[in-house]
């Protein structure tokens, strides 16, 4: 699903809600490459260790109709603080699909770093932009694959009758 915050224009700077949505859908390898080194250098203190549970997903018929329970998904969440408890160190939170605790930790660390003005610009370029690119690419691939199965229904106009047969009812 492509959202309006998947905007890829270069002047676009994201707010927290948007980057958390991006981090939740970021490919694991990209997160590991960019955020992995930060985990080695800073020891996060856990507010909530990674824990896996189920969440009920709700949807609407046709996107606008009655709400119904679509099904449950596995979600892993965690919350951590980078640095000391002094009211200034950022707290990172993440909710990601699946059971990968490491991915949840990486996303939470990235969330915390993005709140820090010294790291924000760097990560915006190195992490968020590539994630947007990735999601856009994924979206267009899926779209084009789906397009090949598209069927256009149309009605063939009957030729005008010569008059003797009369109108078919």
């Amino acid at each position, binding site marked *: 699903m492509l959202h309006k915050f998947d905007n890829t224009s270069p002047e676009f700077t994201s707010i927290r809600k948007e980057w958390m949505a991006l981090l939740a859908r970021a490919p694991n390898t990209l997160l590991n490459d960019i955020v992995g080194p930060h985990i080695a250098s800073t020891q996060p*203190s856990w*507010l*909530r*260790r990674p824990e896996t549970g189920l969440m009920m997903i709700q949807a609407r018929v046709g996107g606008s109709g009655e709400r119904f329970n679509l099904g449950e998904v596995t979600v892993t969440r965690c919350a951590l603080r980078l640095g000391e408890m002094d009211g200034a160190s*950022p707290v990172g939170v993440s909710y990601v699909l699946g059971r990968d605790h490491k991915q949840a930790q990486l996303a939470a660390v990235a969330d915390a770093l993005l*709140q820090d003005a010294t790291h924000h610009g760097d990560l915006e370029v190195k992490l968020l932009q590539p994630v947007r690119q990735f999601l856009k690419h994924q979206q267009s691939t899926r779209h084009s694959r789906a397009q090949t199965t598209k069927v256009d229904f149309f009605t063939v106009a009957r030729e005008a009758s010569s008059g003797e047969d009369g109108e078919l009812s």
Partner: protein
Amino acid sequence: MKSQELQNVVAGFTHEAFGSQAVFRTSLNALSYPGRPLEMPLDCALPRQGQGAAAALLLGLLDSDTTLWMSPSVLHSDATPWIRFHTGCKVVDDVRAAQFIWVAYGDSLPQISKLMLGSDAYPDQSATCIIETQGFDNGVADLVLQGPGIDGDRRLNVMGLPEVFVDQWASNHGIFPRGVDVFLTDATHVVGLPRTTRISRKTKA
């Protein structure tokens, strides 16, 4: 929860399962031996406001199905986001709708008869009240406790317990099987007072 509130939240139990079970065991023992001060295992980071034993007790007992009322001095502190973050409990304004009551030391005690008292059919649907006090010591005991779990009688000295408590407790005991259960705490210890316990002031000789 706003991110500004989350900024001041400290960690919960070091080990969630062991920590909460140790707290639960202590609270069970406290209610089994009314009036006996028991040391609360404090295996968790604590908010700045509120007593450690009270905070740890609530952290162990609450979950997302429970409602909590907090007295003003803990409500407007870092204790509120802390307990909400770690337990998912619902903090309510109306003391009559709360399953757990946290009365910080120095705050006035809500009238016990106004709390959830359960019904005769469901006496378990009553509130549990956690009242912070200044401490328990072995000096001149001013309260005499009697009832199930106590062999004969037990003397208890509580410092900083609101004066009105003993009278309110008598009417709470009178409506058995309905009524609230109480935990008294200081920074490190907890005393259980189940609704079955009778409390009387020691008559001055």
